[in-house]
């Protein structure tokens, strides 16, 4: 199949290709609708995300997505499914039709429409009712060697009282030409389920990462979410946890490190809908060189919610005077029933007293700084259940200090 650029593609071509690929009718129609939206929508009005270095319409989406999925055999025996999304269309079509595109809105802006229209493949994760999937499931997305555009999507369905740990990684070598990665991650945590979700973005230089991620929590569901952003040239992540069910809970930790020539934006939202739901968000940001990071977090407490407890924190550490971090935490409350609500944000250089204290014990300034940065990121790093991955991420962080 020849690779066509976005400029050359049409709704008919997209529909025809989907049909040839054996996709069900409903999906073909969704793609066409999303494409129509993409074609007519103007560029997104993002004030801080600079997309001038890339022309997505000149890029050709590759014909497939490079994804590796690791599922321990013991989980398979319990009925846990982790397989490429395209393959799951055959085995789990009804579930996919029911959930796909219902968390991350496909028609919100030009890029969300693009993702919904052209996603090539991804990962389908399903944990049946009452099953505890203890071993971490790993999904790794890579960049295709040609085309340099990838639009993968992760769909996670955790049924009632199940549990799982999913690690989603985006990694590639440095790119000589600008490349686009536009992934979607959707997580559905059923009643009483427990989900740990670790999403680590560590693309090489030159990648533009424009992602939509959303988790929906049913009654008494519990989510531990870790968001790590280290790579890419530009990162624009719109993420949300919807605390839909009563008594649902989320703890969300973030670690972002923007080095020179990087712009890493994360916009994590906590949306409270259910009663007595509890949320805690703590994002840590390090900026170095002329790096630029943006934290655009928000707590949204909807009208129908009650007795919400929520707290949002962002802390930034500056390793160079040229580096910049914008922190824009917001709080929108549409109800009178809030139990606890608060946010805090701090920003500063590496503490001289900490450095001196560590140096006074023989530790070199470089090593002391490294330890302070790792310590700063420890809430996110400590949540990573795979030691080798943690070490890889630490090595990436270390190389950026």
């Amino acid at each position, binding site marked *: 199949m020849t690779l066509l650029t976005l400029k050359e593609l049409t709704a008919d071509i997209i529909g025809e290709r989907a049909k040839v690929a054996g996709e069900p009718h409903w999906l073909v129609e969704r793609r066409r609708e999303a494409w129509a939206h993409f074609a007519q929508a103007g560029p997104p009005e993002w004030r801080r995300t600079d997309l001038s270095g890339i022309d997505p319409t000149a890029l050709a989406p590759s014909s497939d997505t490079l994804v590796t999925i690791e599922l321990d055999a013991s989980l398979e025996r319990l009925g846990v499914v982790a397989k490429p999304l395209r393959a799951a269309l055959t085995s789990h079509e009804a579930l996919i039709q029911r959930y796909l595109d219902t968390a991350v809105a496909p028609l919100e802006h030009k890029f969300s429409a693009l993702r919904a229209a052209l996603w090539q493949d991804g990962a389908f994760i399903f944990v049946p009712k009452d099953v505890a999937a203890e071993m971490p499931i790993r999904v790794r997305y890579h960049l295709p060697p040609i085309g340099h555009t990838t639009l993968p999507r992760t769909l996670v369905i955790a049924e009632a009282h199940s549990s799982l740990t999913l690690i989603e990684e985006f990694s590639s070598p440095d790119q000589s030409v600008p490349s686009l990665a536009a992934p979607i991650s959707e997580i559905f945590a059923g009643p009483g389920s427990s989900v740990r979700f670790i999403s680590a973005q560590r693309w090489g230089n030159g990648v533009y990462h424009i992602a939509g991620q959303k988790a929906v929590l049913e009654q008494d569901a519990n989510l531990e979410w870790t968001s790590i952003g280290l790579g890419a040239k530009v990162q624009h992540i719109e993420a949300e946890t919807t605390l839909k069910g009563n008594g649902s809970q989320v703890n969300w930790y973030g670690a972002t490190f923007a080095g020179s020539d990087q712009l890493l934006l994360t916009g994590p939202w906590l949306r409270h809908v259910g009663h007595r739901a509890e949320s805690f968000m703590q994002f840590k940001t390090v900026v170095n060189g002329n790096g630029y990071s943006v934290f655009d977090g928000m707590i949204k407490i909807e009208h129908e919610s009650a007795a919400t407890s929520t707290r949002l924190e962002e802390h930034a550490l500056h390793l160079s005077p040229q580096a910049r971090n914008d922190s824009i935490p917001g709080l929108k409350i549409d109800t009178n029933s809030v139990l606890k609500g608060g946010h805090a944000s701090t920003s500063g250089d590496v503490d001289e007293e900490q450095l001196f204290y560590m140096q*006074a*014990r023989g*530790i*070199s300034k470089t090593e002391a700084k490294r330890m302070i940065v790792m*310590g*700063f990121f420890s809430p996110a790093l400590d949540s990573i259940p795979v030691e080798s991955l943690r070490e890889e991420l630490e090595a990436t962080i270390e190389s950026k200090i």
Partner: protein
Amino acid sequence: MSNDLVIKALHANIEEKEILRGVNLTIRGGTIHAIMGPNGSGKSTLASVIAGHPGYEVASGEIWYKGQNILELDPDERSKLGLFLAFQYPVAVPGVSVANFLRAALNAHRSEEGKDPKETAIPMAQFRKQLREGMQALEMDEGFARRYLNEGFSGGEKKRLEILQMTMLRPTMAVMDETDSGLDIDALRIVAEGVNRLAHPDMGVLVITHYQRLLNYIKPHFVSVMMDGRIVRDAGPELALELEEKGYDWLREELTA
């Protein structure tokens, strides 16, 4: 090479204000030497300057230890030379556990130029044993090692951790900056015993204190008095008792007379 710490005509400022105005003092290797003095006399500044705090500017003078003018060394190099400062206000470092910090400090001391740090690093089992023994001697709970460095520690816990670090790093010259401040009697006894185990004759100690109290537990060989940024008197341990009894005013009067 001498294990004496020799301070010569030391002048130091903080934010352009002169705090040390010509300190001359020798701490003989392996002896316990107390510096007493009223608040604001410059005692803690002296401790910080010996350790190399970047917030102080040394205007002139020298500090010699083991054949080097240590004012030319970074704080970590001073530590590796065998100097140790027990902080009056130990600093919290969130996310860095006590155990990891101690291991990093030990490994820094063991590192050798031109050698792979992995080769010189302390074997894990040996480290754990040393840490366990050190904590037991200071009556510290085992869970302590996993806590983040000084974060949420009580005054007593912080000071014990300072002594634990000293125990593990085995300095040859330790400066104790107001180590007695904020300690109850039990903690004071434990801390003092820790110092005494390491001190004389293997380690010289410079005890900086406002009160005589600590000197009941750590018995000095020499006592010097600091006032207005200078050492104004050198004497034996009897001077500490005299100061306790009579305060500092008589000495000031004697000096100005």
